[in-house]
């Protein structure tokens, strides 16, 4: 019994610790280094080329731990596209199909019973004073926000805005 409990606890913990990306595959969006540790000055294990397939094991900040034929290590999450390689073309075609016609919207409304939010509905929307008053009743003062941040050990940092991409 005790043993079962322990295993259950391990199982639950494993579930909780289960990274969002576990078991996910991905492909390199661009060439980048495979690092021994999740830091930019960490030792490079290998160089991954654009399009290289990787298995995503876990996440730490802006870094993903991956397994690839070239080795295991950490890669910047910004250099990886999640999902099967070549998905970008699928994405483009689905985008085109979305743009060409969205006849399915009504169906979703019918099957789920919860409204979708399409342009027609937004255009037809009628002002709801009671709802906006309710929405405003939940507002947070700056002092409250500071307390909330303190509770989460969120410390304000000085970070400059990023300039636009130079082309």
């Amino acid at each position: 019994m005790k043993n079962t409990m322990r295993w259950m606890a391990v199982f639950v913990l494993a579930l909780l610790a289960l990274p969002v990306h576990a078991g996910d595959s991905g492909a390199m969006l661009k060439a980048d280094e495979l690092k021994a540790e999740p830091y930019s000055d960490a030792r490079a294990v290998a160089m991954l080329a654009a399009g290289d397939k990787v298995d995503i094991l876990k996440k730490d900040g802006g870094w993903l731990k991956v397994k690839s034929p070239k080795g295991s290590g950490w890669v910047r999450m910004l250099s990886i596209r999640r999902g099967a390689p070549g998905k970008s073309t699928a994405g483009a075609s689905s985008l085109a199909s979305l743009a060409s016609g969205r006849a399915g919207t009504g169906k979703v409304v019918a099957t789920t019973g919860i409204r979708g939010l399409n342009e027609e509905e937004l255009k037809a929307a009628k002002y709801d004073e009671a709802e906006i008053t309710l929405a405003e009743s939940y507002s947070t003062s700056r002092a409250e926000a500071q307390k909330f941040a303190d509770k989460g050990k969120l410390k304000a940092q000085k970070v400059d805005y990023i300039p636009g991409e130079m082309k």
Partner: protein
Amino acid sequence: MKRTAGRVLFGLSLGLGLWAWLNAASGLNLDELKKSAEELKKKRDSVASDLDKKAKSAGLVEYSDDEESAIGRQIAGNLLGAAPLVKDAKLQKYVNNVGTWVASQSERPDLPWHFGVIDSNDINAFAAPGGYIFVTRGLYRMLNDESELAGVLAHEVGHVIRKHHLKILQKSQVVDQGGKLLEKQVGGNEKIRNLIGSGAEIVARSLDKEAEFEADRIAVVLAARSGYEAYGLPQVLQEIGHAGSDDKVALLFKTHPHPDERFSRLGNAMGERFDNQKGQTLAARFYRIK
């Protein structure tokens, strides 16, 4: 402004007179004198017209914060008419806590910011001028931790602080009323109601692509300033791009650049800046929607 313009004009005239006198005294010929006098006059006119233009653009099209909020309130009220709030007070308060903390790291910390989760399975988020920001239940359910919520809200905060939607309104008919929206205390709201009308399509209006990329760049910075991990928004973009295509993302995909494109543009802009920044994700505190 006018006084400054006057001073500049006066200074230029004085200079012109002095210059003419000096030239005459040194015996320059009359034609040359005329020519340089004409050039100076041209310069003077162009300075005057520049000042005039500046005064006009500064005076006419700017809304006060109060006016902006009143406009946003009307639009937000319209949006809630299409999709009401999720009836979960704890959720709504939580979202306001995160959003207000993030917005307080922006250059408009004192706007009356309002955040909410609206009852729609669509995956989308909306911003109205003055700081009214809403996330759909569908998008909220995709989120894994507080840093992702912060990133999504920060993107909308970016639209508000750079007045992306307000600028569209200013270009439309509303601009004609320029700055006089709240002049009369009585019936002020009525006036705005008449101007905005019903409907909330402005919140789903396609902005310039660059405005979306800009809001993404602002979002990661505001999240980092707030002490969160900067990668919350990129993470969400990756997931939306990965989730692919169905009706739930139809409107989002129609009005925004594709999430994959946003992800890669944002990645290029972020570069290595945030590599060693270890902010909080606060997955444990994240409020799970029922």
